[in-house]
């Protein structure tokens, strides 16, 4: 039998697709769309604030930013009071908090005895995470009464009629107001800034610092002329990050600023910030124009904080690239 059965030609060898190859593209697509979500979220935030606030912007125009009348009864709104309140409280808070935060950071990196270094550093970092509502409650129930009794009243008593001090200290001595809010904000951003500054200072190579000490520099000289200049860009970024927090902070301020509209007349006068106004009035807004004005306020806050935070991040990034 010469009947040879020829086996059918084997199919051309094919590389078996590796396991999971089919989902590779899908997975990459998923990751990409998640990243795009972030972009959409921030864009959506801006667009929705602009749309929601448009009626107020269209009606009041540029005057929205420069007038301080905030009257839900006659439906006339101007944001200047809240804008000034926001900028002043955040600025004063930063002025109080920065030297203290820097002192703490220097203490932890240069002076602190080694066994205490970790516990104190950890404590500062933990405190940075305490919710701001806790700071607000403490401000209202503990800080405000003490502030009124030991600071406000004595200062108002001491002020001579007609003097500059009297002008600065008019208001109801109930412990709340612009200065109180600034102090609470300062305490709130303190652990955050101290922790960031400490982390930055720890990136200074030990050799740089040690050679300065080796040349006979004192601690003060090492800090001011070696370690601080080394992290300068990052430090400015960290400070602006703190400022950004203070600008947008809601709860710590709402409890204690007194919530009145218009330009604050003195450091003890009650005032409002953009965030506290929105928090207080949004759910009770009486007219569509009131809601629109509050959303337009939000847009103003968004622009202010976006600029500050953007600059902060760019500076910090430059520092990271250098370090």
């Amino acid at each position: 039998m010469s009947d040879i059965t020829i086996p059918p030609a084997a199919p051309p060898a094919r590389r078996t697709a590796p396991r999971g190859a089919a989902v590779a593209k899908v997975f990459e697509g998923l990751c990409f769309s998640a990243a795009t979500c972030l972009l959409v979220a921030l864009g959506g935030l801006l667009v929705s604030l602009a749309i929601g606030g448009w009626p107020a912007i269209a009606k009041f125009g540029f005057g929205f930013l420069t007038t301080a009348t905030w009257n839900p009864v006659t439906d006339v709104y101007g944001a200047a009071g809240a804008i000034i309140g926001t900028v002043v409280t955040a600025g004063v808070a930063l002025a109080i908090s920065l030297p203290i935060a820097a002192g703490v950071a220097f203490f932890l990196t240069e002076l602190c005895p080694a066994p205490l270094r970790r516990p104190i550093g950890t404590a500062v970092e933990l405190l940075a995470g305490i919710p701001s509502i806790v700071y607000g409650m403490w401000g209202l129930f503990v800080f405000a009464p003490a502030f009124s009794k030991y600071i406000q009243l004595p200062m108002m008593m001491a002020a001579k009629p007609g003097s500059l001090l009297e002008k600065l200290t008019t208001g109801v001595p109930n412990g709340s107001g612009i200065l109180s809010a600034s102090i609470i904000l300062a305490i709130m951003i303190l652990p955050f800034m101290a922790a960031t500054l400490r982390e930055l200072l720890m990136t200074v190579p030990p050799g740089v610092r040690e050679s300065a000490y080796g040349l006979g520099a004192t601690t003060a000289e090492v800090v001011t002329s070696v370690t601080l200049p080394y992290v300068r860009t990052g430090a400015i970024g960290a400070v602006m990050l703190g400022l950004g927090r203070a600008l947008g902070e809601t709860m710590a301020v709402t409890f204690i600023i007194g919530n009145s509209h218009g330009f604050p007349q003195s450091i003890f006068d009650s005032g409002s910030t953009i965030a506290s106004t929105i928090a207080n009035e949004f759910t009770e807004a009486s007219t569509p124009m009131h809601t629109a004005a509050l959303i337009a306020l939000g847009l103003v806050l968004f622009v202010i904080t976006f600029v500050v935070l953007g600059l902060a991040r760019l500076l910090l990034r430059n520092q990271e690239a250098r370090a």
Partner: protein
Amino acid sequence: MTASAAKIARRRASDIVFKMFCVTVTVVALAALAAILWSLLSQGIGGLDLEIFTKSTPAPGSKGGLANAIVGSIQMCVMAMILALAIGILAGTWLAEYGGRSAYASVVRFLNDVLLSAPSILVGLFVYEILVAPFHTFSGFAGSVALAMLAVPVITRTTEDVLSLQAATLREAGVALGAPLSFVIRTILWRSASSGLLTGALLAFARISGETAPLLFTALNNQFFSLDLRHPTANLPVVIFNFALSAYDDWRRLAWAGALLIAATVLTVTVVARIVAKEPSRS
């Protein structure tokens, strides 16, 4: 000779002033923060009893607890974390593994950093505009979405950071065996970075669990016990806010107890996150 001696004395004096300043401000700062923790403990501990966890928020003058607020907060935080973990880990993975140094990746990275510290009240306004106003009702879902928006940037950032720390040889070894990159990421990189990812999740949870501002006009509040997230949902931060500003002593007592609960939760979660982060990774 005397001139240089005077100079040395001056330098020494300024150094002493500097050191005294640093020590003083550290003591002042720690004292202020200790004072806050102390009043939180002393005012809050008195209000902490079993009824806090078993009864719902009361009318002024009657006995009650925070059960509805606690449950509502947990529900919203869990939902927010599920959403945020899915988006945040994928986005962080894209930034670390696919995006690299492309222009688009650096834009996303920058915006994520901005979102990381954006005012939370604006997130509340945004979610109000897209999820509350169109449906004409405040809801627990809206609250969850607002919280998720605050958690995502944290998770994205930590995910990218821990993935970039994984050894390049891990990726190369996986790819050399013929596995597609996506498979390597999911089965090797995520696994070896798991403790870092967990840390990020815990930090995000700590961040959102005390957030009040974004919930004020998304979840609003609810006086009664409810598991239905389609309606206004009670939550601890807003209850604390309302009760603290009320004129009733028993409401204020509950507010302090609630604040203590939240602060204790946040601190515990942060400490756990730090412990997890310190564990040596298996790589």
